């Protein structure tokens, strides 16, 4: 029974662009390798942090929405913890209202873009 999760993580700002892409792709590959289907992937780019983390005041925010089994999450978070480019991450289980909200948000963004 796969449930929908949403993960937001922050990468250190010292990375160059391709390092950021490389970090994001290996998260995506890790998800795909372990049978999780990535529903939506979003990056908010470089944003100012509200308080310095590891005395860095900005970070690359990435958002992943994926469907996976429950027991996969602990492996996934261990993988995120091992990656030292990751300043911080938060995985959230999505309930009915959250999924509906995310879809509505995506449609709005899609309409706005086209």
């Amino acid at each position: 029974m796969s449930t929908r999760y949403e993960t937001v993580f922050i990468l250190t700002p010292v990375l160059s662009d391709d390092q950021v892409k490389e970090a994001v792709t290996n998260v995506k590959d890790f998800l795909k390798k372990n049978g999780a289907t990535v529903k939506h992937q979003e990056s908010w780019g470089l944003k100012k942090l509200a308080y310095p983390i590891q005395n860095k005041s900005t970070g690359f925010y990435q958002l992943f929405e994926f469907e996976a089994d429950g027991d996969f999450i602990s492996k996934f978070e261990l993988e995120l913890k091992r990656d030292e480019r990751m300043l911080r991450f938060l995985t959230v289980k999505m309930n009915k209202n959250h999924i509906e909200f995310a879809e509505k948000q995506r449609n709005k963004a899609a309409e706005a873009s086209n």
Partner: protein
Amino acid sequence: MAESEIRYLQPINIEVKKEKYCRFKKAGIKYVDYKDYKFLLKFVNEQGKILPRRVTGTSTKFQKKVATSVKRARHLAILPYVGDMLK
């Protein structure tokens, strides 16, 4: 003698009790997004502390949702733990 008119220095204004309502029920919002910075700012005071229900008038169910999303936003450095002049 006519009853003594008590004239006040300035008319006492009776604090008209503004009917508080839960903005989530009224607007039909079902989910409080922890990534939405502007929306969460409405529930946090200048120092970044969560406003109590008696001030915002939200119902218990949604106050809990707001509290968890504010705490998640703080974890992700979207909201500061201790802010200054957030508004």
